[in-house]
């Protein structure tokens, strides 16, 4: 059983997944943030691998990616930073990013190295299900990594079931069709999440996009196993000196 699956065995509600961009705000802040998140009550971490053209992300996360790239972040640097990950971090860690940098690194080499340093799963928004099934899925499985697909309110029932079947770890429910960091009307979202709950999916569901404070976190958790916070945390980290303290305060305001 993977670290992510174990987490959901133990904790079935109010699971908090926090997103941060590797190499942001400082090149070497990645591991500091992971530790601070672990100490402050996060259940799961989604670590963004910066890319020059992140289509599914909003301006705040894109700006953090641009900064991380300027700081000198790339996959080799990231894996070097994560080489002692499992000495201190017991939280499940997921890498989120786009296909192009991974293809240049070598897809199999990437999966192999990720698994070796103790990464648990992948979210690759521009890896579509056709290519996953025909080419990449087998490699991801070979190295024991979970793979998490996204579903949106526009995803058909049939397709939700298919993506659930292909996913392991959890399913990422985008709260409405939008890039990250957009404000959402949560009433409309609730109907969507209630509907997802009735589908008897094999994976737990985490809700992402538009979660920014205690209120939105609580309401997302009403109809899902937990939620993902990204943009709000990236904003909170902007320009701060004490990353640990900022992280701690940020999570206190959510949980």
């Amino acid at each position, binding site marked *: 059983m993977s670290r992510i699956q174990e987490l959901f065995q133990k904790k079935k509600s109010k699971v908090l997944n926090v997103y941060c961009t590797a190499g942001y705000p400082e090149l070497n802040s990645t591991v500091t943030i992971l530790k601070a998140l672990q100490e402050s009550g996060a259940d799961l971490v989604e670590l963004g691998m910066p*890319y*020059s*053209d992140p*289509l*599914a992300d*909003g*301006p705040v996360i*894109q*700006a953090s990616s*641009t900064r991380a*790239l300027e700081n000198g972040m*790339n*996959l*080799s640097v990231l894996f070097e930073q994560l080489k002692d990950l499992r000495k201190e971090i017991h939280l499940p860690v997921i890498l989120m990013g*786009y*296909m*192009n*940098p*991974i*293809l*240049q*690194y070598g897809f199999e080499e990437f999966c192999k190295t990720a698994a070796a340093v103790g990464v648990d799963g992948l979210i690759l*928004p*521009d*890896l*579509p299900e*056709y*290519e996953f099934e025909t080419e990449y899925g087998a490699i991801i499985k070979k190295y024991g990594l979970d793979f998490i*697909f*996204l*579903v*949106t309110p*526009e*995803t*058909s029932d049939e*397709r939700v079931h298919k*993506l659930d079947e292909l996913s392991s770890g959890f399913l990422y429910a*985008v709260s409405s*069709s*939008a*890039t990250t960091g*957009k404000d959402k009307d949560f009433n409309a979202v609730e109907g969507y999440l209630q509907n997802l709950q009735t589908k008897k999916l094999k994976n737990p569901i985490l809700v992402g996009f538009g979660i920014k404070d205690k209120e939105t976190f609580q309401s997302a958790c009403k109809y899902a196993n937990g939620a993902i916070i990204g943009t709000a945390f990236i904003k909170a980290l902007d320009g701060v000196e004490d990353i640990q303290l900022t992280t701690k305060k940020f999570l206190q305001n959510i949980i």
Partner: protein
Amino acid sequence: MIREMKKEITFQHPNEQGYYGSFGGAYIPEMLHRNVEELKEKYLDIMYEPSFQKEFQLLLKDYVGRPTPLFLAERLSKEFNASIYLKREDLCHTGAHKINNTIGQILLARKLGKTRIIAETGAGQHGVATATVCALKGMECIVYMGEKDIERQAPNVARMKMLGAKVIPAMSGSKTLKDATNEAIRDWINNPVDTHYIIGSVVGPHPYPDMVARFQSVISEETRWQLKEKTGSELPTHVVACVGGGSNAAGAFYHFLDELSVQLVAVEAAGHGVYSGMSAATTQLGKPGILHGSKSLVMQTEDGQVVEPHSISAGLDYPGVGPLHANLFKSGRGTFLSATDEEALQSAFHISKTEGIIPALETAHAFAVLGKLNLKTTDKVVVCLSGRGDKDLATYMTAMGI
């Protein structure tokens, strides 16, 4: 236009998943899946419906001004010792080939029940062509344009505004065409129900490259019968076109792609020189990668970050190339050459003085390679004169020291 889905190997059509050889596909986030899937399922049926074709052909004739002439350029022919024909896309309404595609896509958007149109633009030609058809059909139009391009293409920005479009500057990344495309895609993600995205080139996720190539294929369809009238044969020896994303080249090549006797010459922008670090010659500098939803050749760093290209012409200033062209390059079916900023400028002045036609800077790149083709007197060369040069007057004036 005849609907064809050939089963044998062809350079014209991608396979069902949108692949031309190993390039293409639809690498899109789930948020775009429904829109792209809907297009994929319906585009061919809609495009070849008799009612659609009737309206499309009528607009191409009476609004765009098609067929565009195929002009035997006598002085150029003499200079290069071959028959040089110019396919006059510069005479299309709005001054470039771009409108062939926007007319097609606006009609398609209406059939899909969409009410809001978004587009990206580099030089502004596609933005103008989109704003034009939106005005014609009374649809809301939003054009994303890199902040830097807004500065260097002021006349086209003014045109778009006069036509009623809203021009939104792309402020992220390098603030040019690549980023305008990112912003347009983001807009589409955020407005999935009422919006159609009119991509201006043969790039993007399947079915866009195929759909845009089909709408632009009217260029080579006309060229064939025009050549037959003028020379007795439908086939030239060469077709020459400039390539950024590659839409005019796709249209000019389309009905010759599987005619292997015809040499297809694609001319990329070499900027200050292919290896100068200031270039947009994607096939020479790019590696296979994924950009804007398809796998193609992409100019990128070793780490897979997309790099900012350079060309004097905003329309060729793109770090990728359509998957159809990537396949022509890889298979050897296409001949890929390049022209520098300086060569393009010289060529623009030369064509103006020799034939009385001021070409767009993009188009000037195509003319710049004529001397490199080792032409014979019996050769029949078609150059796609993709656009007129009015929009580039500021650059030409600087070059003349005015």
